[in-house]
């Protein structure tokens, strides 16, 4: 791997998404909406001020940030397909391995930004109480967003962009459905015990559930990157 080449691939992916999100692409209004919506949810939750509103709003924000940031990598494939920029990867003086690493780095940046946005939203909702929840939700965005991206990016390398986007959305719906199904089928008392355990469990001073979540996400991200390299090395552009 070559950091200079990775940097080139990373910057070109940023150019692709920046142009797409500009007035010439989906429009800066849509981007503002994408960033503004979680903040709007947070403000509504803060004003509402009770558990009946705060819980669903907070869950909605986390879900939205996980979905958008985790899909950012696969959105680049879709963008390349729409605009013909996939051809640019042919003459690009960056090896295929480094092109893959660049795209993974770009996706990770999107997830980190989403986690920071989650921190801001969490502060709006919970400050000055429940600061543990703010950190916990940010770690959730970081871990689940990374796991979701790990599952979808190889799909982007393997399949044509339209198909890959369809599979990624299907995966998102399936993950959401599983969460909803668990919520509905598990007795409320058990669910509360699980949530309490996940959010408060500590081994000494360490929030070990969060640590395990991050470790799982990192391992999946690395394995996913290796798989994508393997697929892309054999792909005909």
């Amino acid at each position, binding site marked *: 791997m*070559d950091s200079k*080449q990775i940097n*080139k691939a990373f*910057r*070109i992916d940023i*150019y*692709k998404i920046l*142009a*797409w999100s*500009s007035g*010439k*692409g989906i429009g800066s209004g849509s981007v503002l909406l994408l960033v503004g919506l979680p903040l709007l949810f947070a403000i509504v939750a803060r004003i509402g001020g009770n558990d009946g509103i705060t819980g669903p709003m907070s869950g909605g924000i986390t879900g939205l940030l996980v979905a958008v940031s985790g899909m950012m990598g696969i959105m680049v494939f879709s*963008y390349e397909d729409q*605009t*013909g*920029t996939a*051809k*640019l990867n*042919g*003459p*690009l*003086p*960056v*090896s295929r391995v480094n092109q893959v690493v660049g795209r993974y780095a770009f996706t990770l940046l999107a997830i980190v930004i989403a986690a920071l946005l989650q921190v801001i939203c969490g502060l709006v909702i919970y400050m000055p109480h429940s600061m543990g929840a703010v950190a916990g939700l940010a770690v959730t965005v970081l871990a689940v967003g990374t796991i979701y991206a790990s599952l979808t990016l190889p799909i982007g390398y393997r399949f044509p962009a339209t198909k890959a986007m369809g599979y990624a959305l299907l995966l998102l719906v399936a993950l959401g459905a599983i969460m909803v199904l668990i919520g509905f089928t598990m007795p409320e008392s058990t669910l509360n015990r699980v949530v309490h355990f996940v959010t408060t469990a500590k081994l000494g001073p360490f929030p070990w559930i969060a640590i395990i979540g991050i470790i799982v996400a990192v391992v999946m991200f690395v394995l996913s990157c290796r798989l994508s390299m393997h697929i892309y090395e*054999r792909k*005909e*552009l």
Partner: protein
Amino acid sequence: MTQSSPTTVKQDTQVVARGTDPQPMALSVTDVKKSYGSGFSLGPVTFDLPMGYIMGLIGPNGAGKSTLIKLILNMIHRDAGSISVLGLDNRADEVKVKEQLGVVFDTSYFSTYWTVKMAGQVTATMYDTWNQALFEQYLDRFGLEMKKVVKDLSRGMQMKLMIAAALSHGAKLLILDEPTSGLDVLARDELMDILQRYVEDGQHSVLFSTHITSDLERAADFITYITQGQLYYTGPKDEFEDSFRVVKGSLDQAAGIEPYVVGLRRFSTGFEALVHREVVDKIIGETPELMSEPVSIDDIIRLTNVAKAFPDANEE
């Protein structure tokens, strides 16, 4: 359709060009093959492009020109053979090779959402040797405005933008896939001028595929002709045209020349046949009423892609 026997001219790996010093090769393609599940197969293809020259890659649609260009760029993987670009293996030294290549495809690889300025910024990101001043000179020359969005440019202007970018990072070898499609005659002339000036110093070379053979007549030093996935000819352009003649006559005179025909087209009033130059004297000797004429590149492409004999399907 019957395919006539290919005439393949393989250049020596070192040729004496423009003087007496042996010139290194800008591009060497040796026994390259590529097959697809669809049944199309390319090759084996072998040719050399010496440094300081322009080579035209010609052939009808679906002949394998774009496949060959993608193989050179390692965008698709060859089944056999080797490709050397500027003395480097195009796979083992892929990044070093691509840093020295300028590439133009038949459709724009710049995002339709980018402005001309952004296309320049992206290309500058790609190449460490980017020359912004030179890029701006080409934009001025081609009448391209920085703030224009790519999707608002005509196809011809999009091609010019790619050409400007390809010429602005010190590339040693330009690989252009149908660069003149969509350009008007003035822009095509201008591009050919630019390419000729580009190779003048003997340190730069150009490989370009085209359907517009008048561009080749003007600019190309060498020709590589591929048809139906097979290499038909590679070598100096003038030798390519000189190695054939068109013989014309009435239908009743056609039967006698069939053994010599490379390709033949029949009309209601007569026929025209492509034959190798060395047999022309013999043909005319046997049938003095026949006429022999020099051929154009278009004639060769046209007549090497029709049948040798006189099937009805060949009738116009």
